[in-house]
Protein backbone atom coordinates (compact mmCIF):
# COMPACT_ATOMS: atom_id res chain seq x y z
CA UNK A 1 0.00 0.00 0.00
CA UNK A 2 2.76 2.41 0.94
CA UNK A 3 4.53 1.88 -2.35
CA UNK A 4 1.98 4.08 -4.05
CA UNK A 5 2.50 6.85 -1.53
CA UNK A 6 6.17 7.16 -2.39
CA UNK A 7 5.42 7.76 -6.04
CA UNK A 8 4.06 11.02 -7.45
CA UNK A 9 0.73 11.05 -9.25
CA UNK A 10 2.59 11.46 -12.53
CA UNK A 11 4.65 8.35 -11.88
CA UNK A 12 1.55 6.36 -11.00
CA UNK A 13 -0.21 7.67 -14.09
CA UNK A 14 2.62 6.59 -16.37
CA UNK A 15 2.81 3.28 -14.59
CA UNK A 16 -0.94 2.56 -14.80
CA UNK A 17 -1.42 4.05 -18.27
CA UNK A 18 1.95 3.77 -19.94
CA UNK A 19 2.39 5.54 -23.24
CA UNK A 20 3.97 3.97 -26.29
CA UNK A 21 4.26 0.37 -25.14
CA UNK A 22 5.50 -2.00 -27.81
CA UNK A 23 7.91 -2.19 -30.72
CA UNK A 24 8.19 0.40 -33.49
CA UNK A 25 7.56 -1.13 -36.91
CA UNK A 26 10.51 -0.48 -39.20
CA UNK A 27 12.55 0.73 -36.26
CA UNK A 28 15.96 2.01 -37.27
CA UNK A 29 17.36 2.51 -33.78
CA UNK A 30 17.14 -0.15 -31.07
CA UNK A 31 18.59 0.05 -27.57
CA UNK A 32 18.46 -2.74 -24.98
CA UNK A 33 19.99 -2.01 -21.59
CA UNK A 34 19.92 -3.46 -18.13
CA UNK A 35 20.12 -6.99 -16.83
CA UNK A 36 17.44 -9.40 -15.58
CA UNK A 37 19.79 -10.27 -12.74
CA UNK A 38 19.54 -6.64 -11.62
CA UNK A 39 15.79 -6.54 -11.97
CA UNK A 40 15.70 -3.92 -14.77
CA UNK A 41 15.69 -4.34 -18.54
CA UNK A 42 14.54 -1.70 -21.00
CA UNK A 43 14.15 -1.98 -24.75
CA UNK A 44 13.63 1.22 -26.66
CA UNK A 45 12.85 1.23 -30.39
CA UNK A 46 12.98 4.41 -32.49
CA UNK A 47 12.02 5.40 -35.98
CA UNK A 48 14.16 8.29 -37.17
CA UNK A 49 13.38 10.14 -40.40
CA UNK A 50 15.32 13.13 -41.68
CA UNK A 51 17.18 13.43 -38.41
CA UNK A 52 13.98 13.54 -36.35
CA UNK A 53 12.50 10.88 -34.08
CA UNK A 54 9.06 10.24 -35.49
CA UNK A 55 8.14 7.28 -33.33
CA UNK A 56 9.36 5.71 -30.10
CA UNK A 57 8.13 2.71 -28.16
CA UNK A 58 9.35 0.86 -25.11
CA UNK A 59 9.20 -2.48 -23.34
CA UNK A 60 10.38 -2.68 -19.77
CA UNK A 61 10.97 -5.34 -17.15
CA UNK A 62 11.28 -3.44 -13.91
CA UNK A 63 9.58 -1.74 -11.00
CA UNK A 64 6.92 0.98 -11.14
CA UNK A 65 9.56 3.70 -11.49
CA UNK A 66 11.30 1.86 -14.32
CA UNK A 67 8.06 1.56 -16.26
CA UNK A 68 7.11 5.18 -15.60
CA UNK A 69 10.50 6.55 -16.67
CA UNK A 70 10.46 4.40 -19.81
CA UNK A 71 7.03 5.70 -20.71
CA UNK A 72 8.03 9.31 -20.02
CA UNK A 73 11.20 9.15 -22.07
CA UNK A 74 9.31 7.94 -25.15
CA UNK A 75 6.96 10.90 -24.78
CA UNK A 76 9.89 13.27 -24.42
CA UNK A 77 11.74 12.15 -27.54
CA UNK A 78 8.91 11.96 -30.02
CA UNK A 79 9.24 14.82 -32.48
CA UNK A 80 12.73 15.80 -31.32
CA UNK A 81 15.80 15.97 -33.49
CA UNK A 82 18.33 13.27 -32.66
CA UNK A 83 20.81 15.85 -31.26
CA UNK A 84 18.11 17.27 -28.98
CA UNK A 85 17.14 13.82 -27.78
CA UNK A 86 20.76 13.12 -26.81
CA UNK A 87 20.59 16.00 -24.36
CA UNK A 88 17.81 14.38 -22.35
CA UNK A 89 19.29 13.45 -18.99
CA UNK A 90 17.94 11.07 -16.38
CA UNK A 91 17.33 14.08 -14.14
CA UNK A 92 15.11 15.63 -16.79
CA UNK A 93 13.07 12.45 -17.03
CA UNK A 94 12.69 12.28 -13.24
CA UNK A 95 11.75 15.97 -13.13
CA UNK A 96 9.15 15.51 -15.84
CA UNK A 97 7.56 12.93 -13.55
CA UNK A 98 7.55 15.31 -10.62
CA UNK A 99 10.50 13.57 -9.02
CA UNK A 100 11.38 10.07 -7.93
CA UNK A 101 12.19 8.64 -4.51
CA UNK A 102 15.96 8.74 -4.01
CA UNK A 103 16.29 4.95 -4.12
CA UNK A 104 14.53 4.92 -7.51
CA UNK A 105 16.69 7.48 -9.28
CA UNK A 106 18.73 4.69 -10.85
CA UNK A 107 15.65 3.69 -12.83
CA UNK A 108 15.76 7.05 -14.62
CA UNK A 109 19.39 6.33 -15.53
CA UNK A 110 18.15 3.20 -17.28
CA UNK A 111 15.84 5.30 -19.44
CA UNK A 112 18.65 7.69 -20.37
CA UNK A 113 20.95 4.78 -21.18
CA UNK A 114 18.34 3.08 -23.35
CA UNK A 115 17.81 6.27 -25.31
CA UNK A 116 21.53 6.76 -25.88
CA UNK A 117 21.89 3.11 -26.86
CA UNK A 118 19.05 3.39 -29.38
CA UNK A 119 20.50 6.55 -30.93
CA UNK A 120 23.93 4.97 -30.99
CA UNK A 121 22.46 2.01 -32.81
CA UNK A 122 20.73 4.31 -35.31
CA UNK A 123 23.98 6.16 -35.99
CA UNK A 124 25.90 2.94 -36.48
CA UNK A 125 23.33 1.67 -38.96
CA UNK A 126 23.25 4.96 -40.81
CA UNK A 127 26.91 5.80 -41.27
Amino acid at each position, binding site marked *: *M*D*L*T*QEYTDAVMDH*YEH*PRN*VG*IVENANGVG*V*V*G*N*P*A*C*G*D*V*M*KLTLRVEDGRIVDAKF*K*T*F*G*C*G*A*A*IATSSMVTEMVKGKKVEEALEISNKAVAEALGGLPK*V*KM*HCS*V*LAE*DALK*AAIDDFRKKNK
Partner: protein
Amino acid sequence: MGDKMNAIYMDHHATTPLDAEVLDAMMPFLTENFGNPSSSTHEFGRIARNAVELGRQQIAELIGAESADEIVFTSGATESDNLALKGAAYGQKKRNGHIITLATEHKAILDTAKRLQKEGYEISFAKIDSHGVVNLDDLRNLIKPETFLISVQAANSEIGTLQPIAQIGALAHEHHILFHTDAVQALGRIDVNVVRDHIDMLSISAHKMYGPKGIGALYVKKGIKLTPIIDGGGHERGMRSGTLNVPGIVGLGKASEIAKRHWKKESARLLGLRNRLAKGIEARIENVRLNGHPTQRLPNNLNYSFAYVEGESLILACKGVALSSGSACTSTSLQSSYVLKAIGVPESLAHCSIRFGLGKSNTEEHVDILLDLLEKNVARLRDMSPLYEMAKEGIDIEKVGWTEHAH
Protein backbone atom coordinates in the same frame (compact mmCIF):
# COMPACT_ATOMS: atom_id res chain seq x y z
CA MET B 1 -4.02 7.52 -1.54
CA GLY B 2 -3.30 4.81 0.98
CA ASP B 3 -6.78 3.41 1.33
CA LYS B 4 -5.62 1.28 4.22
CA MET B 5 -9.05 0.59 5.62
CA ASN B 6 -10.20 -1.36 2.57
CA ALA B 7 -6.92 -3.09 2.02
CA ILE B 8 -6.63 -6.85 1.94
CA TYR B 9 -3.68 -7.60 4.20
CA MET B 10 -1.75 -10.61 2.98
CA ASP B 11 1.66 -10.01 4.53
CA HIS B 12 1.29 -11.89 7.80
CA HIS B 13 4.95 -12.89 7.88
CA ALA B 14 5.97 -9.26 8.20
CA THR B 15 3.59 -8.61 11.05
CA THR B 16 0.06 -9.34 12.23
CA PRO B 17 -2.70 -7.12 13.56
CA LEU B 18 -3.31 -7.04 17.30
CA ASP B 19 -6.09 -9.41 18.30
CA ALA B 20 -9.02 -7.67 20.00
CA GLU B 21 -8.85 -10.09 22.93
CA VAL B 22 -5.16 -9.31 23.32
CA LEU B 23 -5.82 -5.57 23.44
CA ASP B 24 -8.51 -6.11 26.06
CA ALA B 25 -6.14 -8.14 28.20
CA MET B 26 -3.45 -5.47 27.92
CA MET B 27 -5.56 -2.37 28.58
CA PRO B 28 -5.70 -2.54 32.39
CA PHE B 29 -1.89 -2.75 32.40
CA LEU B 30 -1.64 0.36 30.26
CA THR B 31 -3.96 2.21 32.60
CA GLU B 32 -4.76 1.51 36.26
CA ASN B 33 -2.49 -1.52 36.78
CA PHE B 34 0.78 0.25 36.14
CA GLY B 35 2.89 -1.29 38.86
CA ASN B 36 6.45 -2.54 38.47
CA PRO B 37 6.63 -6.30 39.08
CA SER B 38 9.88 -5.75 40.98
CA SER B 39 8.06 -3.67 43.58
CA SER B 40 7.77 -6.19 46.36
CA THR B 41 6.31 -3.89 48.99
CA HIS B 42 2.88 -3.01 47.67
CA GLU B 43 -0.20 -4.20 45.84
CA PHE B 44 0.66 -2.40 42.61
CA GLY B 45 3.75 -4.57 42.29
CA ARG B 46 1.92 -7.72 43.26
CA ILE B 47 -0.74 -7.27 40.60
CA ALA B 48 1.95 -6.73 37.97
CA ARG B 49 3.92 -9.74 39.17
CA ASN B 50 0.88 -12.00 38.98
CA ALA B 51 0.13 -10.83 35.46
CA VAL B 52 3.70 -11.54 34.41
CA GLU B 53 3.62 -15.01 35.89
CA LEU B 54 0.38 -15.77 34.12
CA GLY B 55 1.92 -14.63 30.85
CA ARG B 56 4.91 -16.82 31.45
CA GLN B 57 2.66 -19.79 32.08
CA GLN B 58 0.64 -19.18 28.92
CA ILE B 59 3.75 -19.06 26.77
CA ALA B 60 5.20 -22.16 28.43
CA GLU B 61 2.00 -24.03 27.65
CA LEU B 62 2.07 -23.06 23.99
CA ILE B 63 5.52 -24.54 23.48
CA GLY B 64 5.24 -27.49 25.88
CA ALA B 65 7.86 -26.21 28.30
CA GLU B 66 8.07 -28.06 31.59
CA SER B 67 8.20 -24.90 33.68
CA ALA B 68 7.11 -21.29 33.23
CA ASP B 69 10.47 -20.31 34.72
CA GLU B 70 12.09 -21.39 31.48
CA ILE B 71 10.65 -18.31 29.73
CA VAL B 72 12.89 -15.22 29.56
CA PHE B 73 11.25 -12.01 28.33
CA THR B 74 12.97 -9.84 25.75
CA SER B 75 12.13 -6.91 23.49
CA GLY B 76 11.43 -9.24 20.60
CA ALA B 77 12.75 -12.20 18.68
CA THR B 78 15.73 -10.27 17.35
CA GLU B 79 16.91 -9.80 20.91
CA SER B 80 16.03 -13.43 21.71
CA ASP B 81 18.16 -14.61 18.79
CA ASN B 82 21.02 -12.38 19.92
CA LEU B 83 20.75 -13.65 23.49
CA ALA B 84 20.62 -17.29 22.42
CA LEU B 85 23.74 -17.12 20.28
CA LYS B 86 25.83 -14.62 22.23
CA GLY B 87 24.61 -15.86 25.59
CA ALA B 88 25.68 -19.39 24.76
CA ALA B 89 28.92 -18.31 23.09
CA TYR B 90 30.13 -16.03 25.86
CA GLY B 91 29.44 -18.72 28.42
CA GLN B 92 31.83 -21.14 26.75
CA LYS B 93 35.17 -21.67 28.44
CA LYS B 94 37.07 -20.98 25.22
CA ARG B 95 36.04 -18.01 23.10
CA ASN B 96 36.51 -19.75 19.78
CA GLY B 97 33.88 -22.46 19.63
CA HIS B 98 31.93 -23.65 16.60
CA ILE B 99 28.32 -22.85 15.66
CA ILE B 100 26.34 -24.49 12.88
CA THR B 101 23.42 -22.70 11.28
CA LEU B 102 21.75 -22.17 7.87
CA ALA B 103 22.20 -19.51 5.19
CA THR B 104 18.42 -19.00 5.12
CA GLU B 105 18.10 -17.88 8.74
CA HIS B 106 16.68 -14.50 9.71
CA LYS B 107 19.20 -11.64 9.76
CA ALA B 108 18.96 -11.62 13.55
CA ILE B 109 20.75 -14.97 13.48
CA LEU B 110 23.03 -14.32 10.50
CA ASP B 111 24.27 -10.91 11.62
CA THR B 112 24.77 -12.13 15.19
CA ALA B 113 26.74 -15.10 13.85
CA LYS B 114 28.79 -12.72 11.71
CA ARG B 115 29.66 -10.64 14.74
CA LEU B 116 30.66 -13.75 16.70
CA GLN B 117 32.79 -14.82 13.78
CA LYS B 118 34.63 -11.48 13.93
CA GLU B 119 35.20 -12.16 17.61
CA GLY B 120 36.88 -15.47 16.91
CA TYR B 121 34.09 -18.04 16.79
CA GLU B 122 33.76 -20.41 13.84
CA ILE B 123 30.46 -20.45 11.93
CA SER B 124 29.42 -23.16 9.46
CA PHE B 125 26.37 -23.27 7.22
CA ALA B 126 24.85 -26.68 6.67
CA LYS B 127 23.86 -27.52 3.11
CA ILE B 128 20.23 -27.05 2.10
CA ASP B 129 18.38 -28.45 -0.87
CA SER B 130 16.58 -26.46 -3.57
CA HIS B 131 13.50 -26.23 -1.33
CA GLY B 132 15.55 -24.92 1.56
CA VAL B 133 15.40 -28.07 3.71
CA VAL B 134 18.59 -28.80 5.64
CA ASN B 135 20.69 -31.78 4.63
CA LEU B 136 20.88 -33.77 7.86
CA ASP B 137 23.91 -35.78 6.75
CA ASP B 138 25.82 -32.61 6.03
CA LEU B 139 24.77 -31.22 9.39
CA ARG B 140 26.00 -34.37 11.11
CA ASN B 141 29.31 -34.22 9.22
CA LEU B 142 29.92 -30.64 10.28
CA ILE B 143 29.82 -31.52 13.97
CA LYS B 144 33.19 -31.57 15.69
CA PRO B 145 34.44 -31.39 19.29
CA GLU B 146 34.40 -27.56 19.24
CA THR B 147 30.73 -27.41 18.21
CA PHE B 148 28.64 -26.04 21.05
CA LEU B 149 25.53 -24.74 19.31
CA ILE B 150 23.26 -25.56 16.38
CA SER B 151 20.71 -22.89 15.44
CA VAL B 152 18.09 -23.79 12.85
CA GLN B 153 14.79 -22.01 12.30
CA ALA B 154 11.57 -23.98 12.58
CA ALA B 155 10.02 -22.28 9.54
CA ASN B 156 11.26 -19.76 7.00
CA SER B 157 9.58 -16.38 6.75
CA GLU B 158 10.02 -15.99 3.00
CA ILE B 159 9.49 -19.42 1.49
CA GLY B 160 7.64 -21.10 4.35
CA THR B 161 9.85 -24.20 4.32
CA LEU B 162 9.70 -26.24 7.53
CA GLN B 163 12.89 -27.74 8.96
CA PRO B 164 13.03 -31.24 10.53
CA ILE B 165 13.32 -29.82 14.03
CA ALA B 166 12.76 -33.09 15.89
CA GLN B 167 15.59 -34.79 14.01
CA ILE B 168 17.96 -31.86 14.44
CA GLY B 169 17.13 -31.78 18.14
CA ALA B 170 17.84 -35.48 18.47
CA LEU B 171 21.12 -35.08 16.63
CA ALA B 172 22.20 -32.18 18.82
CA HIS B 173 21.14 -34.04 21.95
CA GLU B 174 23.14 -37.10 20.87
CA HIS B 175 26.27 -34.96 20.65
CA HIS B 176 25.59 -32.86 23.75
CA ILE B 177 25.31 -29.73 21.64
CA LEU B 178 22.90 -26.92 22.43
CA PHE B 179 20.03 -26.65 20.01
CA HIS B 180 18.36 -23.30 19.41
CA THR B 181 15.47 -22.71 17.08
CA ASP B 182 13.99 -19.42 15.90
CA ALA B 183 10.34 -20.42 15.99
CA VAL B 184 8.92 -16.99 15.18
CA GLN B 185 7.06 -18.04 12.04
CA ALA B 186 6.09 -21.46 13.38
CA LEU B 187 4.23 -20.57 16.56
CA GLY B 188 0.49 -20.50 16.20
CA ARG B 189 0.84 -22.22 12.82
CA ILE B 190 2.35 -25.66 13.41
CA ASP B 191 2.94 -27.91 16.39
CA VAL B 192 5.93 -26.88 18.50
CA ASN B 193 7.06 -28.91 21.50
CA VAL B 194 10.38 -28.15 23.15
CA VAL B 195 10.58 -31.32 25.24
CA ARG B 196 9.60 -33.78 22.51
CA ASP B 197 11.96 -32.13 20.01
CA HIS B 198 15.00 -31.73 22.31
CA ILE B 199 14.99 -27.97 21.95
CA ASP B 200 17.23 -26.11 24.39
CA MET B 201 16.39 -22.55 23.37
CA LEU B 202 13.56 -21.13 21.30
CA SER B 203 12.84 -17.59 20.10
CA ILE B 204 9.36 -16.13 20.21
CA SER B 205 7.93 -12.93 18.74
CA ALA B 206 4.60 -11.49 19.86
CA HIS B 207 3.81 -9.37 16.83
CA LYS B 208 3.99 -12.38 14.52
CA MET B 209 1.11 -14.06 16.36
CA TYR B 210 -1.42 -11.26 16.75
CA GLY B 211 0.32 -9.80 19.78
CA PRO B 212 1.95 -6.40 20.28
CA LYS B 213 5.24 -5.23 18.82
CA GLY B 214 8.22 -4.75 21.11
CA ILE B 215 7.96 -7.94 23.17
CA GLY B 216 9.26 -11.43 22.70
CA ALA B 217 10.75 -14.24 24.69
CA LEU B 218 13.47 -16.82 24.72
CA TYR B 219 12.75 -20.28 26.06
CA VAL B 220 15.83 -21.47 27.93
CA LYS B 221 15.74 -25.02 29.20
CA LYS B 222 16.39 -25.46 32.90
CA GLY B 223 20.04 -26.03 33.57
CA ILE B 224 21.24 -23.77 30.77
CA LYS B 225 22.75 -20.53 31.92
CA LEU B 226 23.33 -17.83 29.35
CA THR B 227 25.69 -14.90 29.71
CA PRO B 228 23.41 -11.87 29.56
CA ILE B 229 23.82 -9.30 26.81
CA ILE B 230 21.99 -6.69 28.86
CA ASP B 231 23.17 -6.03 32.40
CA GLY B 232 21.52 -4.08 35.18
CA GLY B 233 19.69 -5.62 38.08
CA GLY B 234 19.68 -9.28 37.18
CA HIS B 235 16.05 -9.74 36.15
CA GLU B 236 14.90 -12.94 34.45
CA ARG B 237 17.18 -15.14 36.53
CA GLY B 238 20.15 -12.97 35.65
CA MET B 239 19.73 -13.47 31.93
CA ARG B 240 17.98 -10.24 30.94
CA SER B 241 17.95 -7.14 33.06
CA GLY B 242 15.42 -4.37 32.77
CA THR B 243 11.99 -3.60 34.13
CA LEU B 244 9.58 -6.00 32.57
CA ASN B 245 7.25 -4.76 29.85
CA VAL B 246 4.14 -5.79 31.73
CA PRO B 247 1.51 -4.80 29.15
CA GLY B 248 3.62 -6.42 26.45
CA ILE B 249 3.99 -9.59 28.48
CA VAL B 250 0.27 -9.73 29.14
CA GLY B 251 -0.29 -9.31 25.41
CA LEU B 252 2.22 -11.99 24.46
CA GLY B 253 0.72 -14.33 27.05
CA LYS B 254 -2.80 -13.78 25.80
CA ALA B 255 -1.70 -14.20 22.19
CA SER B 256 -0.04 -17.49 23.16
CA GLU B 257 -3.15 -18.69 24.94
CA ILE B 258 -5.31 -17.88 21.91
CA ALA B 259 -2.80 -19.53 19.60
CA LYS B 260 -2.86 -22.70 21.65
CA ARG B 261 -6.64 -22.74 21.54
CA HIS B 262 -7.03 -22.00 17.84
CA TRP B 263 -3.97 -22.98 15.87
CA LYS B 264 -5.08 -26.39 14.66
CA LYS B 265 -8.39 -25.17 13.30
CA GLU B 266 -6.98 -21.93 11.94
CA SER B 267 -4.09 -23.68 10.21
CA ALA B 268 -6.50 -26.06 8.53
CA ARG B 269 -8.52 -23.08 7.33
CA LEU B 270 -5.41 -21.27 6.09
CA LEU B 271 -4.22 -24.38 4.31
CA GLY B 272 -7.50 -24.43 2.43
CA LEU B 273 -7.02 -20.79 1.41
CA ARG B 274 -3.41 -21.38 0.50
CA ASN B 275 -4.34 -24.29 -1.72
CA ARG B 276 -7.10 -22.25 -3.35
CA LEU B 277 -4.60 -19.50 -4.13
CA ALA B 278 -1.92 -21.91 -5.35
CA LYS B 279 -4.33 -23.87 -7.54
CA GLY B 280 -5.65 -20.63 -8.99
CA ILE B 281 -2.23 -19.24 -9.78
CA GLU B 282 -1.01 -22.42 -11.40
CA ALA B 283 -4.17 -22.97 -13.41
CA ARG B 284 -4.58 -19.42 -14.66
CA ILE B 285 -1.02 -18.13 -15.11
CA GLU B 286 1.76 -19.87 -16.98
CA ASN B 287 5.51 -19.63 -16.36
CA VAL B 288 5.24 -19.43 -12.59
CA ARG B 289 7.50 -21.14 -10.12
CA LEU B 290 6.84 -22.00 -6.51
CA ASN B 291 9.74 -21.16 -4.22
CA GLY B 292 10.15 -23.37 -1.16
CA HIS B 293 8.93 -26.86 -0.36
CA PRO B 294 5.59 -27.80 -1.95
CA THR B 295 4.25 -29.62 1.12
CA GLN B 296 6.67 -29.26 4.03
CA ARG B 297 5.64 -25.69 4.27
CA LEU B 298 3.79 -23.25 6.53
CA PRO B 299 0.05 -23.59 5.96
CA ASN B 300 -0.33 -19.87 5.29
CA ASN B 301 2.67 -19.21 3.02
CA LEU B 302 3.19 -19.11 -0.72
CA ASN B 303 6.06 -17.62 -2.66
CA TYR B 304 5.86 -17.56 -6.42
CA SER B 305 8.11 -16.18 -9.10
CA PHE B 306 6.13 -14.85 -12.07
CA ALA B 307 8.63 -15.02 -14.90
CA TYR B 308 9.31 -11.90 -16.96
CA VAL B 309 7.44 -9.64 -14.54
CA GLU B 310 9.23 -7.70 -11.81
CA GLY B 311 7.89 -8.05 -8.28
CA GLU B 312 7.33 -4.42 -7.30
CA SER B 313 5.53 -3.65 -10.54
CA LEU B 314 3.18 -6.59 -9.93
CA ILE B 315 2.50 -5.63 -6.32
CA LEU B 316 1.76 -2.06 -7.44
CA ALA B 317 -0.73 -3.49 -9.90
CA CYS B 318 -2.51 -5.54 -7.24
CA LYS B 319 -4.11 -2.45 -5.78
CA GLY B 320 -5.75 -2.93 -2.45
CA VAL B 321 -3.73 -6.02 -1.51
CA ALA B 322 -0.75 -5.79 0.84
CA LEU B 323 1.98 -8.17 -0.30
CA SER B 324 5.75 -8.34 -0.34
CA SER B 325 8.41 -9.36 -2.82
CA GLY B 326 11.93 -10.73 -3.01
CA SER B 327 12.89 -8.21 -5.68
CA ALA B 328 15.72 -5.77 -5.15
CA CYS B 329 13.45 -2.82 -5.80
CA THR B 330 11.42 -3.63 -2.69
CA SER B 331 14.39 -4.00 -0.36
CA THR B 332 16.16 -1.19 1.44
CA SER B 333 19.49 -2.72 0.51
CA LEU B 334 18.58 -2.90 -3.20
CA GLN B 335 19.64 -6.53 -3.11
CA SER B 336 17.27 -9.30 -4.09
CA SER B 337 16.28 -11.88 -1.50
CA TYR B 338 19.23 -13.71 0.03
CA VAL B 339 16.93 -16.60 0.93
CA LEU B 340 15.97 -17.17 -2.69
CA LYS B 341 19.62 -16.90 -3.64
CA ALA B 342 20.55 -19.48 -1.01
CA ILE B 343 18.13 -22.05 -2.44
CA GLY B 344 19.44 -21.48 -5.95
CA VAL B 345 16.72 -19.34 -7.51
CA PRO B 346 18.30 -17.37 -10.39
CA GLU B 347 18.36 -13.64 -9.69
CA SER B 348 16.22 -12.92 -12.69
CA LEU B 349 13.46 -14.97 -11.01
CA ALA B 350 14.16 -13.65 -7.53
CA HIS B 351 13.21 -10.19 -8.79
CA CYS B 352 9.92 -11.68 -10.00
CA SER B 353 8.90 -13.18 -6.70
CA ILE B 354 5.88 -12.36 -4.59
CA ARG B 355 5.38 -13.61 -1.05
CA PHE B 356 1.82 -14.31 0.11
CA GLY B 357 1.28 -14.51 3.88
CA LEU B 358 -2.29 -15.45 4.73
CA GLY B 359 -3.80 -14.79 8.12
CA LYS B 360 -6.89 -14.55 10.29
CA SER B 361 -8.46 -11.69 8.32
CA ASN B 362 -8.20 -13.41 4.94
CA THR B 363 -11.12 -15.10 3.23
CA GLU B 364 -11.93 -17.01 0.06
CA GLU B 365 -13.18 -13.75 -1.39
CA HIS B 366 -9.79 -12.15 -0.81
CA VAL B 367 -8.10 -15.02 -2.58
CA ASP B 368 -10.47 -14.75 -5.53
CA ILE B 369 -10.00 -10.98 -5.81
CA LEU B 370 -6.24 -11.46 -5.74
CA LEU B 371 -6.35 -14.18 -8.38
CA ASP B 372 -8.24 -11.88 -10.73
CA LEU B 373 -5.72 -9.09 -10.14
CA LEU B 374 -2.77 -11.39 -10.64
CA GLU B 375 -4.08 -12.94 -13.83
CA LYS B 376 -4.95 -9.61 -15.38
CA ASN B 377 -1.80 -7.78 -14.37
CA VAL B 378 0.71 -10.52 -15.08
CA ALA B 379 -0.68 -10.56 -18.62
CA ARG B 380 -0.52 -6.76 -18.86
CA LEU B 381 3.03 -6.58 -17.53
CA ARG B 382 4.21 -9.43 -19.71
CA ASP B 383 2.95 -7.56 -22.76
CA MET B 384 5.20 -4.73 -21.62
CA SER B 385 8.17 -6.98 -20.90
CA PRO B 386 11.11 -7.32 -23.29
CA LEU B 387 12.00 -10.55 -21.49
CA TYR B 388 8.62 -12.09 -22.28
CA GLU B 389 9.04 -11.05 -25.89
CA MET B 390 12.44 -12.72 -26.00
CA ALA B 391 11.15 -15.86 -24.33
CA LYS B 392 8.35 -16.12 -26.89
CA GLU B 393 10.96 -15.88 -29.63
CA GLY B 394 12.80 -18.78 -28.06
CA ILE B 395 15.75 -16.77 -26.77
CA ASP B 396 17.34 -18.08 -23.56
CA ILE B 397 17.47 -15.02 -21.32
CA GLU B 398 20.20 -16.49 -19.11
CA LYS B 399 22.52 -16.76 -22.10
CA VAL B 400 22.22 -13.21 -23.43
CA GLY B 401 25.23 -10.94 -22.98
CA TRP B 402 23.53 -8.18 -21.03
CA THR B 403 25.10 -4.78 -20.65
CA GLU B 404 24.98 -3.45 -17.11
CA HIS B 405 23.94 0.08 -16.42
CA ALA B 406 25.21 2.27 -13.63
CA HIS B 407 23.21 2.11 -10.42
